[in-house]
Structure formats: C-alpha cells, structure tokens
C-alpha cells in the first residue's frame, strides 16, 4: 500500500504521554467534548420531529454506501462521463505525489500564483500545501480552523474542527503576532471579533487568488457534481471566485443519485455538528455557463486512490463507507484524552486508528489498533454503521499473524495461554498469586506499586484480593 505523507504514528505512545499532560490542550478538549456529544444527541433526537428514525436512516445510509463500494469502478465511470459532459476535466491520482503534480501542473497552465483552499483532508494526505509552496504557489487555507492551524504551522487535529486543540487565548496570541497588532484580553464573547479579523484578511485572498482548491463531501454520479457541506461560506468563495476550481476527493466519495445524497444529508450534519442541515450545501456541476455571472472557467476533478482501491473487497471494505462526519472521534474516550495530534497522521480517533495503518503501512502504526478500550462508543454512533472496533481488531490479528508485536508481549501471552489450558497448574499458580497480591497490599488493602503492571499502578491503587481464590474457597465449602 502507498505511503502517504510522513507519518508519526509509530510514536503514538510517546506522543500520547505528552498530550495527556498538555494542560492547554486538555482545557480545550474538556470544553469541546460536551458540545460535540450534546449537539449530536440533540440532532439525532430531532429526527423524530421530522418523522424519521435513526436506525432506519442509518440502514438506508449504510445501504447507499455499500452499493457504491461494492461496484466502485462502475460508479466512477458513470461519474467521470457525466462530469466531463458537464464541462469539467477529470484526472486520476494514485497517490499524494500525483495529486501534487496534477495541481502544480494545472496551476502553471493557468498562471496561478495563489490558491485559496477550503477544507480538504486529502490535501493533508498529499501534503499539498508544502508542495505548492515549494513550487512558488501560495496556498491559503480559508476555513477558520484550517486558517488558524496554517498560521500556527500545525496540522489539523480533528477532521471537522481542525483547531479544536487550541484555546481562545492561544488563537488571540497567534492572531496578534501574525496580523501584527497588539495582544488583547479576550472572552468567549469576542470570538466573532476574531472571526471577523480572519475574514478581513481572507477577503483579500479570495479576490486575488487565481485558483480555488476544495474537497467534496460527495460526488454525485448521476449528475457529475461535487457536493460540498460547509458552515462558514468560505467554500462558496473558493469554488466560485477564482477562475480555476480544483476538486480533490477520494474515489470512494461517490453516491449514485441526488436522492441518495439527500438521504445521506439527513445524517451527515446531524452526526457531525448536530445540525439538521449545514449552513451551506453546494452542488457544483461543470464550469461557468454563458448566462451565469460567477463560477470558475475551469473545473478539474482529481479522483484519488492513495490506498483506497486496495480496501475494496478486503477485510476492511467497510471503512470505505466512511462519510467523514467525525462522530467516531467525538465519542471516543481516547481521542478526548489526547486530541488528534497524538495519532501522528492525517486522521485521528477511531477512523484514524483504522485508516492510518491501512494507508501508511500496518508495520508503521503498531499502537493505533490497540489505542482503544473496545468500548464501541464509535461504532454505536457511526451514521453508516462501520464496525470500527472490529476493524481495529482485525488489524491486531494481522499484527499477530505477522509477528509484529514485541517479543516480550508475545511470550507473555503464550505463557499465560498455556497456563490457562492446564487448569490444575493454573489453580496452583492463582492460589499463590492471590497470596502474593495480598502480601503486597498495605494496611488499607491497597497495592500501591505492582511490578507486573506498572502502567496500571502509576495512576491507581489496585484493590488487593482477600488472599484465597474463589475455586479454593468453593472447594473448601464443598468439603464442609
């Protein structure tokens, strides 16, 4: 599978240890979590007002996405033909490098020196901003969160809330420095002022950029359109003002019909932000027509594989249904203890724990499939019913099959497994273990340090057992 972008996912454990102690980050996450969870819950509960049922809709959405993933090549052909018929150009990219070379090539052909971007996680997979800068083309992120992240020289830490890891004070300090103005005291009431400040800067970029780059939430096969679901309005500017519009999407983003798109839209905004519909929903088809006053003169779709095609028909095909709502990370206890950067690559949270190993190499992200308590809070909220814990589990199995786990871990598991298959010996050993654990405990019946599991007792006291096992006591009871 293709390697996309330098991944830091091998260092999850070390990065997690840093992030879990990052006070600013923890403060930001603590604020965001109830908002994400509460808004989604309200949004899903609101379905009933429209006479809709979550379980039924979810089955319908799952079905639509399954239909596409099962016959991806057919739908892609239909989309390509319809998009071309509407006047757009369709290009294919097998990996991030090819995305970059396509975009740079288009930019050169059209004399582009500046490109405004609306959110695109695929451009993160390709590290497109770095490539554009190196080619002398200035990329400007226009989603507020992405703009903040770009100013800070960072990467997004969440797929729909890229700057969720930043506190208000951090954004104020960043804007003061980068916009060349004095630092001010800010409260939450001032957030619109900061947004307006960013808007004023971005306005100039919208008007001067020759190219707009966007992702697409969906590609509609029957009409050859890109569907864009946004809240800030920047997506409209990016896709209509510059003379060239480049849409970069994964090949799995197809939906067959507009009707299907409407069905998915019942759950996408609700799952993401709790909204019954996002502030803007754009359907972009072809180029500016003769009777239209705005829109690009040139529209190019770049349809990207970057590891996706290999998932079709594999044990991980379910993952291709993903509609990038972010609900899995919004409900993940691990994500909300660490934020997104700990995960080390483009996609954080449960979806990242599945996608990062698949797209960057299973051997390059060994911790991620294990970075889950198995709680299935992600699977329970997924609008297209992706069994995320089962996919992480399958990755764990592959690690085991390929002997990728540390030797000490494999030996310990093997020894324990052997013992568990020899009940008489197991009984003898657990009897002694119960006594040993009792002996380790202090007067209050707690074990403060356990050498066998130091990670456990670093943050907890282990309540000590009474000193005799159940089976030992039960045998004695039967004798009496």
């Amino acid at each position: 599978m293709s390697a996309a972008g330098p991944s830091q996912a091998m260092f999850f454990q070390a990065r997690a240890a840093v992030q879990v102690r990052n006070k600013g980050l923890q403060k930001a996450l603590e604020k965001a979590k109830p908002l994400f969870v509460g808004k989604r819950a309200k949004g899903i509960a609101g379905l009933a007002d429209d006479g809709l049922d979550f379980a039924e809709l979810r089955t319908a959405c799952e079905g639509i996405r399954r239909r596409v993933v099962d016959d991806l090549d057919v739908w892609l052909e239909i989309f390509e033909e319809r998009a071309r018929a509407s006047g757009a150009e369709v290009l294919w990219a097998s990996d991030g490098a090819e995305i970059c070379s396509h975009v740079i090539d288009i930019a050169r052909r059209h004399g582009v020196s500046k490109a405004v971007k609306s959110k695109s996680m695929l451009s993160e997979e390709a590290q497109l901003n770095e490539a554009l800068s190196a080619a002398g083309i200035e990329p400007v992120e226009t989603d507020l969160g992405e703009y903040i992240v770009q100013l800070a020289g960072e990467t997004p830490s969440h797929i729909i809330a890229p700057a969720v890891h930043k506190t208000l004070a951090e954004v104020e300090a960043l804007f003061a420095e980068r916009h060349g103005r004095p630092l001010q005291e800010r409260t939450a009431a001032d957030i619109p002022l900061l947004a307006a400040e960013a808007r004023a800067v971005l306005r100039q970029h919208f008007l001067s950029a020759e190219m707009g780059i966007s992702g697409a939430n969906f590609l509609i096969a029957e009409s050859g359109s890109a569907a864009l679901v946004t809240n800030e309005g920047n997506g409209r500017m990016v896709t209509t003002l510059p003379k060239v519009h480049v849409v970069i999407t994964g090949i799995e983003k197809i939906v067959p019909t507009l009707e299907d798109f409407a069905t998915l839209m019942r759950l996408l905004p609700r799952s993401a932000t709790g909204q019954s519909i996002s502030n803007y929903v754009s359907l972009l088809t072809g180029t500016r027509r003769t009777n239209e006053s705005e829109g690009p003169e040139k529209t190019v779709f770049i349809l990207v594989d970057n590891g996706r095609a290999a998932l079709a028909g594999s044990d991980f095909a379910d993952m291709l249904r993903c509609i990038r709502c972010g609900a899995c990370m919004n409900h993940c206890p691990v994500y909300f203890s660490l934020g997104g950067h700990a995960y080390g690559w483009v996609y954080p949270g449960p979806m990242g724990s599945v996608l990062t190993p698949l797209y960057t190499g299973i051997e390059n992200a060994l911790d991620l499939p294990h970075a889950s308590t198995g709680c299935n809070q992600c699977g329970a909220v997924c609008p297209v019913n992706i069994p995320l814990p089962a996919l992480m589990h399958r990755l764990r199995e592959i690690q085991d099959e390929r002997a990728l786990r540390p030797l000490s871990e494999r030996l310990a598991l093997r020894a324990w497994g052997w013992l568990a298959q020899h009940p008489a010996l197991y009984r003898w050993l657990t009897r002694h273990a119960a006594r040993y654990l009792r002996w380790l405990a202090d007067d209050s019946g707690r074990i403060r340090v356990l050498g066998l599991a130091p990670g456990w007792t670093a943050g907890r006291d282990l309540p000590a057992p009474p000193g005799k096992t159940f089976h030992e006591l039960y045998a004695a009871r039967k004798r009496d």
Partner: protein
Amino acid sequence: MRLALFVTCLVDLMRPEIGFASLRLLEGAGCDVVVPPGQTCCGQPAWSAGNRPLAADLARQAIAQLEGYDHVVIPSGSCSDQIRNVYPQLLADDPAWSGRAQALAARSYELSCFLHEVLKLDRVPGEFPGSVTYHDSCKGLRGLGIKAQPRDLLARVSGLALSEMPDCEECCGFGGAFAVRFGDVSTAIVDRKCESIAAAGADAVVGGDLGCLLNIEGRLRRRGDLRTRVLHLAEVLAGEAPK
C-alpha cells in the same frame, strides 16, 4: 434447572465474594448450580490481543467445560459478550465446534440478564441502606443490551436509592490490556468517570464487570476518595455473606 456458573478468572483471583454472591442469588432462586471445576478464562485477553488461534483454543476449552447445562451464568458483561458474541464467529469455520459454540452462546447469560429475563426475579435478598449509582460497562451495554436489567433489580433491594451519574454510559477507560499498555491515557479516562461518580454523590458505585470496578476503585482511592464504595451488582443484590 441445572446451571453452570462461570465465575471468570478475574473474580476467581481478585474478588471471590462476587462468585459466592452470584451463587447465593441463583441457589436462593431455586437453581441447581454447578461450578464446573476445570474453568479458567474465556480467552478474551487472547482475542483482544489479536491472537486468534489461542483465543480459539481457550474457547474450545470453555465450551467443553460449560456445555451440557440448561444455562450458563456469568457475573460479567465482558466475558458474556465473549461467549455469546465472539465464540460463534471465532469458531465459525471449525465444523466440529461451530455448532457447539452457537449452542453455548444461546444458553449463556450475563448475571443480571439471567436474573431478570429468565428467572424474572421479583425479590432479592440484599439490603442496602443508602444510594448507589450504576456504571454501564461497555460490553454489557453495547454488546448485550444491558441497561434496564440491573436497574430493575437494584430497585428491588430494600433501602436502596438509585442516583444516576452523568454520562453513565461513558467508558471507564479499563479495556483490559489497554489500561496497562496506555496507563496514563486510561487514567485520564477514568478520571472523568470519577468526576461523574462524584457528581452523583452516591454511597456506592455499582457495576456488572469486575475489570471496570477494579479500575474505578483503584482510581477513586488514589484520588483520595476513601468513602465511595465500589461494588459488583451481585454483591448488592445478594447482600452480605452469612458469617
């Protein structure tokens, strides 16, 4: 009715009282309870680690031990999930065992499910003068649909008042090997659980899975909460052991 009690490896080693409380509840309801002597572990640690062959070996061992009874009762949502939901898929391709795995899965019950759905217990022996808050363990809740059963049973405990904590369905951060492998992340998660428990202000937090309970109790004590008791559902329903 002849039952097998699968006490689980964690209860066997760490808190045998939960096994005896389960026995008292089941025998008190008139069941003939056997504790099959060769039982060790359901194999979930091997399954979670991704070691499918070892998990399958342990599943076959447990099936051989536990089949042949009218029902199997397990005082743990997590181990029940392993037997009910994992065994059948784990052994699906093993013609000699897949039928046996399915048969056992269909006969196996988490304790509160069994008391509530099969025995339809309307009286429980336990008394608890105080308030408790219930932690929904993940595998029980999302794997087996355990939500109302323990609460209905707790409502029958004389003197007991249920005080729900906020986010009672949130994971406690245990996750088996997860809590050892990523100890500090697990601690951050269980800290949020401890705050929820504190917000409920109950005398005890009650749950159906010893793993979660050890995790929660361990963190509560380290944080300095020496007051809130941490109890398994079986212990509360059965009441104090006769001395």
